[in-house]
């Protein structure tokens, strides 16, 4: 038995026989040619390119409808084939250096490699792999070798093991008996990995030396959840994995069919589970994953992307679409939450020593009233089309809130005069993310309809930790007793004033924190849509009575370390089966 590590590229578990694809390395024969042969050599190259081009075009035509969208990858391969850096350059080199086509092609490739080496963006650098695939196919065609992946001898279901697979190879696999594949090269963002994901073929890539570590016919376990492959597993391992595979299939089916079940604890506490969103395109995923609305609609995108400030009409159109498409679910929209430096239009360009503590969010909006008014008008107008709620970020005390509310009233009067429809009773809430807001939460609670705790900033400001700074990032601890007390204070103050308190930070989407949040008594959790099914499941397995007890014990502990230990033990003791399924989610399983 041998265990090898790689990168999980497309989730799943496969167990089966190995089908080893021996990559016959094409040796480049380097040869000088004489002047009279230049034309002939160029023709030989041109016809090899045409053959590969035809082959790729045929493959595009044969793609089944479900994966038609991926034809663009193959289209880009055709473009690369005809790119002047490949095509024209090779022809030039044949002539200028009187060398054969293979050699010229190799030289053209090294030049492209050198150019790509200067690119900073890793994703773009990886496209070099696509160019290699294309060039290798041309080389194979030049030598008359087979240029298509030969899976004809794959008669039984098997796991394909290869040095590398091109996107075209991967597309061939669908028809064959391919249970999954393992490659030595490749990364999570390679086109081959992306294709495997949409074809639903489990895949682990980047497994060094796999082709020399196994033989066709041997048994292989492909754990594409953890990025592991096991060659010739022993009896016990095999049994464990057969059970894991069964669980995984069951889990996936369950996620799909149960995502719409309510988030209700065993003892009947119903907590609202909503999604965080940024783009209109996310709406189908949000609904599919069982969200009961949007708890945090971030509005920065339109401001960051366009050169000029977005107009009220542009904003209105987008907000209206979101509200209408999510109706009857509520949508909580957060007003602009960035610093002036992030605005593409650059209205304020002051260099701040400390942007996190600088002119941002509500502070910026209150100063740049033209900008703020346009957004508030757009939001209010969109409120006529569904259940839209307003959320203000970074409020630190009552003064800001009084100012915001006065502005809002003024805009409402204005809209009324102009004859625009809007919801006069629109619910207004604030983000609880500045420590001072927690300490005066009792005062703020009388002024608003709801609180939403933003844990990311609240933790950063409470612990004075910049998470990006590696020297201190290990001190960022959501379970710090100080953080827990902050959250509890805010929730208690809200409830005392009779308003709802939600949470929309990362903490809300992590299973381990759920018993604590239930025990503190939050009314709503808003998170990345992908996390919703598992969080709902954790909630359904919980007993709120036990969580109350558990939280009061946690609050008596005196260090973050002790709190974390206790939280982990509690989770293990009360949710044994789910620790396993949570692992599945951690690899970014998307359904």
């Amino acid at each position, binding site marked *: 038995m041998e265990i090898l590590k790689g990168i999980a590229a497309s989730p799943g578990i496969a167990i089966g026989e190995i089908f080893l694809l021996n990559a016959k390395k094409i040796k480049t024969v380097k040869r000088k040619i004489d002047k009279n042969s230049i034309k002939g050599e160029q023709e030989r190259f041109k016809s090899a390119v045409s053959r590969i081009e035809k082959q790729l075009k045929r493959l595009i035509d044969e793609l089944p409808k479900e994966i038609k969208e991926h034809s663009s990858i193959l289209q880009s391969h055709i473009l690369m084939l005809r*790119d002047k850096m490949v095509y024209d350059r090779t022809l030039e080199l044949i002539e200028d250096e009187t060398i054969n086509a293979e050699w010229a092609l190799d030289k053209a490739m090294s030049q492209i490699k050198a150019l790509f080496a200067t690119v900073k963006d890793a994703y773009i650098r990886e496209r070099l792999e696509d160019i290699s695939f294309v060039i290798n196919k041309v080389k194979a065609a030049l030598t008359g070798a087979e240029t298509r992946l030969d899976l004809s001898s794959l008669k039984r279901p098997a796991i394909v093991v290869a040095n590398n697979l091109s996107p075209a190879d991967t597309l061939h696999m669908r028809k064959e008996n391919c249970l999954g594949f393992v490659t030595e090269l490749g990364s999570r963002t390679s086109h081959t990995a992306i294709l495997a994901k949409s074809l639903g073929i489990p895949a682990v890539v980047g497994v060094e030396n796999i082709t020399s570590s196994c033989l066709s016919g041997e048994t292989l376990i492909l754990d594409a959840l953890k990025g592991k492959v096991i060659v010739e597993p022993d009896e016990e391992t095999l049994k464990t994995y057969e059970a894991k595979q069964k669980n995984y299939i069951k889990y996936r089916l369950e996620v799909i069919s149960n995502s719409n079940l309510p988030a209700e604890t065993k003892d009947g506490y119903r907590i609202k589970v909503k999604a965080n969103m940024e783009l209109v395109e996310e709406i189908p995923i949000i609904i599919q994953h069982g969200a009961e609305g949007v708890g945090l609609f971030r509005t920065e995108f339109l401001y960051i992307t366009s050169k000029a400030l977005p107009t009220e009409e542009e904003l209105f159109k987008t907000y209206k679409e979101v509200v209408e498409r999510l109706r009857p679910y509520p949508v909580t929209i957060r007003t602009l939450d960035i610093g002036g430096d992030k605005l593409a239009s650059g209205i304020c360009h002051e260099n701040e020593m400390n942007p996190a503590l600088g002119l941002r969010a509500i502070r910026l909006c209150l100063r740049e009233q033209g900008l703020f008014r346009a957004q508030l008008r757009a939001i209010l107008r969109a409120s006529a089309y569904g259940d839209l709620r307003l959320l203000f970020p970074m409020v630190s005390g009552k003064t800001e809130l009084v100012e915001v509310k006065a502005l809002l009233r003024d805009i409402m009067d204005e809209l009324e005069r102009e004859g625009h429809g809007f919801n006069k009773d629109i619910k207004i809430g604030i983000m609880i993310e500045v420590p001072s807001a927690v300490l005066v939460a009792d005062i703020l609670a009388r002024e608003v309809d709801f609180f939403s705790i933003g844990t990311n900033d609240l933790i950063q400001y409470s612990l004075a930790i910049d998470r990006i700074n590696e020297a201190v990032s290990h001190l960022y601890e959501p379970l710090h007793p100080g953080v827990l007390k902050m959250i509890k204070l805010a929730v208690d103050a809200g409830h005392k004033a009779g308003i709802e308190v939600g949470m929309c930070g990362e903490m809300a989407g992590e299973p381990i924190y759920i018993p604590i949040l239930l025990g503190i008594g939050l009314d709503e959790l808003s998170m990345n849509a992908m996390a919703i099914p598992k969080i709902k499941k954790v909630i359904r397995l919980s007993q709120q009575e036990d969580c109350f007890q558990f939280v009061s014990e946690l609050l008596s502990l005196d260090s973050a370390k002790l709190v974390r230990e206790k939280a982990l033990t509690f989770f293990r003791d009360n949710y044994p089966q789910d620790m396993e399924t949570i692992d599945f989610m951690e690899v970014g399983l998307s359904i």
Partner: protein
Amino acid sequence: MTSNKIIERSITILNRLGLHARPASRFAQTASLFKSDIWLIKNGKSVDGKSILEVLTISCPSGTQLTIRAKGPDAKEAVEALEELVAKRFGEID
């Protein structure tokens, strides 16, 4: 008289992922439909707009400002078509 006209236009990349593989390939594909020579210019560095490889290597994340320059008989049409392609985020949902 119009055959050597140079047309330039400033554009901003709006796609969330920037000018990555698919948009770069659509850009080069569209540029190749025109007779004019087409360049993409970023910070004074210019690349051939018809070459997917060159377009890829200038690496343009979202928000990057570029200039499209075209020279030739259909320069105006080319620049307009490319400008629209960029404005429509290359037809991508992102």
